[in-house]
């Protein structure tokens, strides 16, 4: 089926705008719009009711993503029994109301309003980028404006400079009608409050701070551009390319929020990505990455041709797909014959679709004949899987994002949503502005602690590595002050485990006072926070990698589940345990059986019945022993027992800790197959390159942090000729293992056949419902927004003993500071995608943040180059001095390979899952004159060598080709 043949998710560009937001109410009212009755929830505006009745009342300042404002005076209507002509956007419907939307009087009034607008608006419609999609133009047409009696010569706003400072959109004040939609979008939708209306009356103008958009507080989320009814705020891609001709609904390939987008297209070229209003994760909102940073997909750096080489010191040779598959398969067979079946393995990625991940683990288990398959979720949320399965019975978050609308008190622990999960952060901030309270537990003063109209009630600024101590102390206060939900616990939890846990947590050593020396948090703050959370009717916990990436990561997750059960906060909207997943498909990658000990649906390989189920479907015997996890693969490679690795969509050489150990492991491999859209850092150690396809080039599904399965839809052909799922199928065939699929929907059908939580999932149902939250089966045919409603998946909730143990990574005189790593808004993970977009203008190098006190002690000033040394290695970066940090703690990101942030991090890991301890490394910082450390100089030399080998290979190929 081609796209043009009735693609189920293909829409025209016109999306119905209801003018005002949907209202929630148990009561309904019936109004008559031009005589037609329509039934709407109480509180609905007359404007919205009219649209429901099929009548578009002219409007300019209203749009359904924003509360009504009533400034443009275009949406006037007549209502029986009421005087004058009220604005339909600000007038709520009353039962029995008779509304007239069109009359001679109304037409005259509206024409008068439009006449005034147009008298001060450029008449360059034909060359305007909004031509064909301009609400002002549409309204002029709708009201029948034919003449402007005032002329155009008077005082006006037609000579003003464009603000082109933002790389993705322009601000042309000459086109502005000061409807305030942009200002309100920045406030209501995004919650940044970067825009304002400056001046009064004729002087009113939209302003982004004192200078321009780029230098303002603007975070480039695009909400203002989306809201603008004219071409005042306009995507530069539309200015350059023109309006789209069709749109396809798909899912963002960045973070775990999993926003739904409409890819707006001209032919097979994307001209704009617009957040999808009906997307259930994002409800029409977006961030700078998903909205604007998609240009990487067609970046000249894309690898389009398969390549092979025998040694990593050989030049690359571009080959056909057939030759690449044959060579890779022959190497796997040779290595298995020489070193045994267990000497090979594969790594899937949370950036890949469910279908691709499922196929890769199937290839390893059925084609390679072992269980050496892991996913990059290993290094981020594997403790979530372990911790929540142990306590609640299912390895997933308990809620949907909409749940936040019903929460009264939120704990954000080890997560920085405004940078890492911006669209969720906007929804959270909205709820906080409505009055919910906030407790932030983080070593840094993240933006949420204090942001416009939001202030945390408590910021527990703990020392890195002491999450478990803080959470234990919170639980201690709840229990010893009798604030626990006794009835809930008695009904829902295992009382024997609870009894043990209660005795443990009540011990004095778990009190905030006793733990203060480890946490650094004043005991009274912990007591206050515990009381606030326990007393809230609905308390919700949101957490991120600041919990999981610790030597006690799994214990940390279990402290969260303990506190949620203790306070009765699981099983309904507004509460719950909410892991904020890093990448787009972390949840999905875990669900799909890409952990070495589990088959899809979190079923252990030691279970004979499960092995038989999969073995029968796949026609093989599944190995009963768990395979190697990613860090174990590296150790086994260095040790000489692991020789071949197939890595899909993952850059382990940059993202994994203790870089020099990873490099040594990769150098030890005899066959490294890398499947990626770019020649990433790992590719420099590879023997085979399978060029990958971006999310725009293939069909599949992603599962976000809410367990929501959403479609990824192909909008352009794959640049290398094959989509990623086809590559795995063909590679398997070359290995002698046949996989029969003609479309990814058939892979999902197989997943559904084999996985009890997915039995009701199909592409047909996804097309019908838009998205589905698993479990989706006979018991829940349309999915499950929140889990553990009447009982926990494991039966009774299990309180687990969570003793605080300090990390083995200790500060000393030689390494007196603690480094903690994280991410920032404009870049994503290893930066492979965002570094190839204009997001670079916000963050073109990784920076070390340190406290003024630590800077002063070392004679360091803002902007200096500093060397950061740990027990594992050292690297050099620029620093900034900021009191966001606490004394003794420094922070950096790992978005740029040449920064070598992971050269410094250690091989310590979570006790249960081997998830690396990225968040705690003892370091020393000193000012240096050079801008590169020793490792960075080696990195540069190796990069140059590999670049040369690639060029040599291409040159030889083209010579041969010309002969």
């Amino acid at each position, binding site marked *: 089926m081609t796209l043009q043949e009735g693609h189920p998710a293909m829409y025209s560009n016109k999306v119905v705008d209801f003018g005002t937001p949907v209202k929630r109410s148990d009561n309904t009212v019936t109004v008559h719009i031009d005589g037609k009755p329509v039934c709407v929830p109480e509180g609905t505006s007359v404007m919205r009711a009219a649209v429901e009745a099929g009548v578009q009342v002219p409007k300019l300042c209203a749009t359904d993503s924003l509360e009504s404002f009533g400034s443009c005076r275009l949406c006037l209507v007549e209502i029986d029994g009421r005087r004058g002509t009220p604005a339909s956007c600000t007038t709520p419907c009353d039962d029995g109301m008779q509304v007239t939307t069109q009359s001679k009087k109304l037409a005259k009034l509206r024409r008068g309003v439009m006449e005034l607008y147009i008298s001060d608006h450029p008449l360059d419609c034909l060359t305007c980028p909004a031509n064909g999609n301009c609400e002002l133009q549409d309204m002029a047409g709708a009201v029948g404006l034919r003449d402007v009696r005032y002329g155009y010569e008077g005082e006006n706003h037609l000579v003003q400079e464009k603000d082109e400072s933002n790389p993705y959109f322009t601000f042309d004040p000459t086109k502005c009608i000061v409807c305030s939609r942009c200002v309100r979008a920045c406030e209501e939708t995004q919650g940044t409050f970067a825009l304002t209306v400056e001046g009064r009356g004729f002087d009113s103008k939209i302003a982004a701070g004192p200078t321009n958009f780029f230098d303002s507080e603007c975070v480039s989320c695009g909400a203002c551009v989306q809201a603008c009814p004219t071409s005042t705020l306009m995507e530069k891609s539309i200015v350059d390319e023109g309006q789209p001709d069709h749109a396809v609904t798909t899912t963002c390939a960045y973070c775990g929020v999993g926003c739904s987008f409409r890819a707006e297209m001209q032919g097979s070229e994307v001209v704009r990505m617009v957040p999808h209003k009906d997307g259930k994760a994002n409800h029409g909102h977006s961030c700078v990455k998903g909205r604007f940073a998609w240009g990487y997909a067609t970046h000249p750096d894309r690898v389009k041709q398969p390549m092979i080489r025998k040694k990593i010191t050989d030049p690359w040779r571009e080959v056909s797909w057939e030759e690449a598959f044959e060579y890779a398969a022959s190497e796997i067979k040779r290595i298995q014959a020489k070193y045994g079946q*267990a000497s090979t393995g594969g790594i899937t990625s949370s950036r890949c679709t469910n279908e691709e991940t499922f196929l890769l683990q199937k290839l390893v288990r059925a084609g390679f004949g072992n*269980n*050496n398959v892991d996913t990059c979720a290993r290094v981020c949320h594997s403790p979530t899987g372990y911790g929540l399965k142990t306590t609640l019975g299912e390895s997933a978050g308990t809620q949907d994002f909409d749940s936040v609308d019903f929460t009264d008190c939120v704990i954000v622990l080890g997560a920085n949503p405004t940078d890492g999960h911006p669209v969720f952060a906007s929804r959270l901030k909205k709820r906080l502005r409505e009055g919910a309270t906030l407790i932030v537990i983080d070593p840094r003063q993240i933006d949420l602690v204090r942001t416009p109209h939001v202030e945390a009630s408590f910021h527990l600024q703990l020392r890195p590595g002491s999450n478990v101590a803080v959470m234990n102390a919170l639980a201690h206060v709840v229990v010893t002050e009798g604030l626990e939900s006794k009835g809930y616990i008695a009904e829902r939890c295992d009382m024997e485990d609870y009894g*043990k846990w209660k005795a*443990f947590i009540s011990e004095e050593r778990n009190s905030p006072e006793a733990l203060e020396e480890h946490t650094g948090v004043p005991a009274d703050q912990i007591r206050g926070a515990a009381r606030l959370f326990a007393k809230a009717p609905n308390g919700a916990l949101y957490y991120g990698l600041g919990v999981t990436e610790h*030597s006690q990561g799994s*214990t940390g997750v279990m402290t969260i589940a303990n506190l949620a059960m203790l306070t009765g906060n699981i099983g309904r909207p507004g509460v719950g345990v909410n892991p904020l997943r890093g990448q787009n498909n972390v949840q999905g990658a875990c669900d799909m059986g890409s952990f*070495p*000990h589990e088959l899809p649906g979190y079923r*252990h390989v*030691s279970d004979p019945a499960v092995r038989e189920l999969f073995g029968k479907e796949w026609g093989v015997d599944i190995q*009963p*022993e*768990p*395979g*190697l*996890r990613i860090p*174990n693969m590296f*150790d*086994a490679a260095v*040790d000489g*027992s692991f020789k071949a690795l197939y890595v899909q969509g993952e850059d382990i050489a940059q993202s994994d800790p203790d870089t020099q150990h990873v490099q040594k492991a990769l150098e030890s491999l005899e066959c490294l197959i890398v499947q990626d859209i770019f020649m990433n850092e790992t590719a420099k150690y590879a023997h085979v390159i399978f060029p990958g396809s971006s999310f725009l080039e293939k069909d599949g599904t992603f599962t976000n942090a809410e367990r929501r399965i959403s479609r990824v839809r192909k909008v352009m052909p794959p640049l290398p000729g094959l989509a990623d799922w086809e590559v795995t199928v063909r590679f398997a065939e070359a290995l002698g293992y046949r996989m029969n699929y003609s479309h990814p929907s058939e892979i999902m059908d197989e997943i559904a056949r084999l996985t009890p939580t997915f039995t009701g999932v199909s592409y047909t149902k996804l097309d019908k419902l838009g998205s589905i939250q698993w479990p989706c089966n006979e018991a829940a045919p349309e999915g499950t927004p929140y889990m553990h409603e009447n009982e926990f998946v494991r039966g009774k909730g299990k309180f687990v*003993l*969570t*003793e605080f*143990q300090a990390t*083995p990574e200790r500060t000393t005189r030689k390494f007196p500071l603690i480094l903690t790593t994280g991410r920032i808004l404009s870049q994503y993970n290893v930066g492979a995608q965002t570094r190839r977009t204009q997001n670079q203008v916000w963050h073109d190098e990784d920076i070390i943040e340190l406290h003024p006190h630590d800077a002063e002690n070392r004679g360091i000033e803002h902007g200096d180059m500093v060397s950061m040394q740990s027990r594992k290695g050292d690297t050099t970066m620029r620093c900034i001095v900021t009191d966001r940090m606490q004394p003794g703690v420094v922070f950096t990101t790992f978005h740029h390979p040449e920064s070598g942030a992971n050269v410094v991090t250690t*091989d310590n*890991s979570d*006790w*249960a*899952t*081997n998830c690396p301890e990225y968040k705690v490394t003892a370091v020393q910082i000193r000012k240096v004159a050079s801008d590169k450390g020793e490792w960075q100089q080696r990195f540069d030399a190796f990069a140059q060598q590999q670049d040369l080998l690639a060029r040599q290979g291409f040159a030889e190929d083209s010579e041969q080709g010309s002969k």
Partner: protein
Amino acid sequence: MEAAKLVGMANQIASFFATEPDRPIAVAGTANHIQKFWEPRMRKALLQAFDAGGDHGLHELVVAAITEHRAGLEPITA
């Protein structure tokens, strides 16, 4: 596989289960975790480090886990 690293990892697991007041549960928990999550060559190397005797540095719960649950920790032979 480097024995010292595996000993450290096993000891971390034992430290988690050490809080459990019911000793058989703690010992079984330690053994079960290693059995369920460690690939056979890791378990083999751990058992070798234990069998070599001397100062292997293993947490006493790991020692008890190996002693009492040895069969489950041995790699499955086809």
